[in-house]
C-alpha cells in the first residue's frame, strides 16, 4: 500500500520544493487512476476487454460540462432546469448517465465475446465521439470550457490541495469498494463467468446479468472520473472520447498489473511520470514510449505490481473466439 502513502505525500513534498505544478500533474494521474481501477474490474476480473471506455469518461465529463454551462449562464437545459454546479448533484448524475449508456452498450456488446467485444465497444465509443464532435450547441469539436468548478459546501475546490485530496479520497473509496466487491459473492460469480461461463450457468447464475452489472458499475466509475477531469482541466472536448484515450486507459491497467485493482494506480502514475520526463527529453517521445509499452507487454506480464511482488503473474487467455 506504499502507493497510497506516496500519493498522500504529494502535496507536502510539492510545497517543500515550491513546485505546486506537481500537485496538478499527480492530480491528473489520480483521476485517470479512478477510471482505470474501474476498467480493471471488467477487464481484469470480468474478462470483458472494453476498448471503448473513454466513452464513459467523456460522457461523465460532458455531463459536468453541459450542466455547468447552463448553471453559469442561467439558460434552460431541460424542462426548465438550468443545470447545476453542485457536486452532489452533478457527480452522481455523471455516474448515472454513464451507467445508463453502459447498460445500453453492455446489453448489445455482451451478446458478443472475444475480439468482437473489443471491436464493438470501440465502435460505440466512436459513435459517441462523433456525436460530441457535431454537438455544436456545446462547442462541437472545439470543446466546452467549464467556467466554474463544481461546488461542495465547506470545501474550496479551487484550492489545489483540497481538490487533490478530494480526488485522492475518491480513488481510495473506489479502490476499497471494488476490492470488497470482487471478494463478495457477486465478484466471485463475475470471475467465474470469465473462467467458465457454462459452469456458472449450470450453477444457476445468469452470466449476462452479472457481467452487465459489472459493466455498468465500471461505466459509472468512468463517468465519475470524467466529471473529475472536467473539474480538473476546467474544459471538456471530444478528445476525451478519442479511441487513443481508450487505449491509454488500457495501457494504464496493463502497465500497472491486470486484475489487481491497485495496479492501475501504479500504472497511471508510471504513464504520466514517463510522459512528463520523456517530453522534456525529446519531442519525439512517442518513439520511446511505444517500444516501452511493447517491452512491458512482452516481458513484464504482471505489470508493475507483478514486478514488485517478484513474479510475473500469468494471464489466462480470455478470448472466447474459438468457442
Amino acid at each position, binding site marked *: 500500500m506504499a502507493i497510497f502513502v506516496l500519493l498522500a505525500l504529494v502535496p507536502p513534498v510539492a510545497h517543500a520544493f515550491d513546485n505546486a505544478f506537481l500537485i*496538478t500533474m499527480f492530480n491528473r494521474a489520480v483521476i485517470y487512476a479512478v477510471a482505470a481501477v474501474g476498467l480493471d474490474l471488467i477487464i481484469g476480473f470480468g474478462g470483458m476487454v472494453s476498448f471503448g471506455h473513454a466513452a464513459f469518461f467523456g460522457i461523465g465529463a460532458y455531463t459536468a460540462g453541459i450542466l455547468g454551462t447552463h448553471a453559469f449562464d442561467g439558460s434552460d437545459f431541460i424542462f426548465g432546469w438550468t443545470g447545476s454546479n453542485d457536486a452532489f448533484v452533478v457527480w452522481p448524475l455523471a455516474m448515472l448517465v454513464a451507467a445508463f449508456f453502459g447498460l445500453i452498450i453492455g446489453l448489445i456488446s455482451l451478446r458478443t465475446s472475444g475480439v468482437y467485444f473489443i471491436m464493438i465497444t470501440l465502435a460505440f465509443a466512436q459513435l459517441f465521439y*462523433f456525436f460530441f464532435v457535431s454537438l455544436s450547441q456545446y462547442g*462541437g469539436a472545439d*470543446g466546452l470550457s467549464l467556467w466554474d468548478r463544481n461546488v461542495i459546501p465547506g470545501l474550496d475546490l479551487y484550492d489545489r490541495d483540497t481538490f487533490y485530496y478530494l480526488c485522492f479520497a475518491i480513488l481510495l473509496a473506489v479502490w476499497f469498494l471494488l476490492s470488497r466487491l470482487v471478494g463478495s459473492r457477486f465478484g466471485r460469480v463475475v470471475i467465474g463467468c470469465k473462467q467458465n461461463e457454462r459452469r456458472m450457468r449450470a450453477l444457476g447464475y445468469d452470466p449476462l446479468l452479472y457481467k452487465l452489472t459489472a459493466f455498468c458499475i465500471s461505466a459509472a466509475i468512468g463517468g465519475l472520473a470524467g466529471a473529475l477531469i472536467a473539474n480538473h482541466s476546467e474544459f471538456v472536448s471530444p478528445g476525451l472520447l478519442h479511441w487513443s484515450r481508450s487505449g491509454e486507459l488500457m495501457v494504464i491497467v496493463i502497465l500497472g498489473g491486470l486484475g489487481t485493482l491497485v495496479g492501475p494506480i501504479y500504472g497511471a502514475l508510471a504513464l504520466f511520470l514517463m510522459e512528463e520526463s520523456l517530453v522534456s527529453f525529446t519531442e519525439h517521445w512517442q518513439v520511446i514510449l511505444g517500444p516501452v509499452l511493447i517491452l512491458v507487454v512482452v516481458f513484464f506480464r504482471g505489470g508493475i505490481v507483478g514486478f*514488485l511482488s517478484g513474479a510475473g503473474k500469468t494471464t489466462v487467455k480470455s478470448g472466447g473466439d474459438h468457442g
Partner: protein
Amino acid sequence: MLAKRKKAALLGAAALLMGTCAAGISAQAAEPVKIGMITTLSTGAGYLGDDMRKGFELAISEHDGKLGGADIDLIVEDDGLKPESARQIATRMMESEHVDLMTGIIFSNVAMAVVPKVVRDGMIYISTNAGPSALAGAKCNANYFNAAYQNDNIHEAMGQYVQDQGFKKVYLLAPNYPAGKDALAGFKRYYKGDIADEVYTKLGQTDYAAEIASLRAAKPDAVFFFYPGGMGINFIKQYAQAGLKDEIPLFGPAFSADEHLVDAVGEAAVGMKNTSHWSPDMDNAASKKFVAGYFAKYGAKPSLYSVQGYDAANLIGSAISAVGGDMSKKDDFRAALKKADFSSVRGNFKFGNNNHPIQDFYVREVVADPDGGYTNKLVGKVFSNHVDAYASECKM
C-alpha cells in the same frame, strides 16, 4: 525480501523524479525573458507548428539569440492537438517554469482551452495562428494579442474576391466543426450571390468522391472550400482527378494552399486561387530578407505559419526593447505591444481596439516554382486595412 528491495527502489526512483521536476524550477536565472510556446508538433498537423516555431526561432537567431536586446529562453512544448494537454502545459509553464509570456497555439480549439484561462490569470498571450471569434468580440482581453488574423478574415477576403469576379452560383464545402461553419459564414459575409449548396463533411474525412459527384451534378460556377491540412490535400487531388479543375474554378483560404500543402498536392493545385495576408513574392524588404534567411537556415520555403511566428517574435522584440528588458513593467509592455512598432513581412500591420490585426489581404495563385516544387504568386489585393467583424463588440 527481493520484492521489498524492488519496491524501495521504485519508490526511490519516483521520489527522485519528483525531486528533479521540482529542482528544475529552483535553478532558474532571473536575466533572460522566458517565452512559453505551446504548439502542435505531432499528429498530421504537426508541420504547422513546426513552421511557426522555425519562423519564431529565425527571428531570435537573426538577433544573436536575443529579442529587443534581451536574452531569450524559449520553451517549446507540443500539445499534440489535445486541448487538455495544452491546458496542463500552460499551467506548468505559468506555475513551475514562471514564463513571462506565452504564444504558439495553432488550433482554435486548443486556444479556447488555454487562452481565456491564462489571460484571466494575468499572463500575456500572443497568438501566432488561432483567432477564434469568441476572443475577438465581447470577451476580448487586454492581455491577449493576436499577431496572425481573426479566423474569419481570410474567408471574408475570398468572399469579396469571388463576388468581385462576378460569380453567381457558388458551391460551399467545409468540415462539420465550428471552424468550418465560421469559415463559410465568413465567406458569405462578403459574397452576396446564390449558394448552389452548402455541404458539411466529417472532420478528418479522407475520401471526397461522393461530395465531388454531387457537386458536379449541382453545376455551380465556382467552388469555395475550407479544408485545412490533410483534408485539403485529399480534396484538391480528388477534385483534379475528377477532371473538374479546368471546368469549375476552385477557391479556398491559404490554409488549403500553404507552401507544404501545394508541394504535397503537386500539379493538381496549380492555378488554384487562395486568399492570404502574405505571399512569398511580396515586394517589401522585410519579406525578401525573411524568405532568403529562412531558406538559408532551414533549406525550405516558409509558409504563412512561419511568417506568423517570425512576425510574433519581432513584435515581442519591439515591446521588450521598449521596456528595456524589464518584464515586470507589464502595463508598459502591453502598451508597447499595442503600438506594433516592428516591420512586418506582411507590410501594413497594426492592432485594432480588440488587439487583433488590421492588415491587408491578398489573392494568390498556386504556380510551379522555377526552383522546383510549387509555390504561390501574388495576384492582387482584396482588402486594405481590413478590420474584423467582431471588433465593434469589444469594449477596449
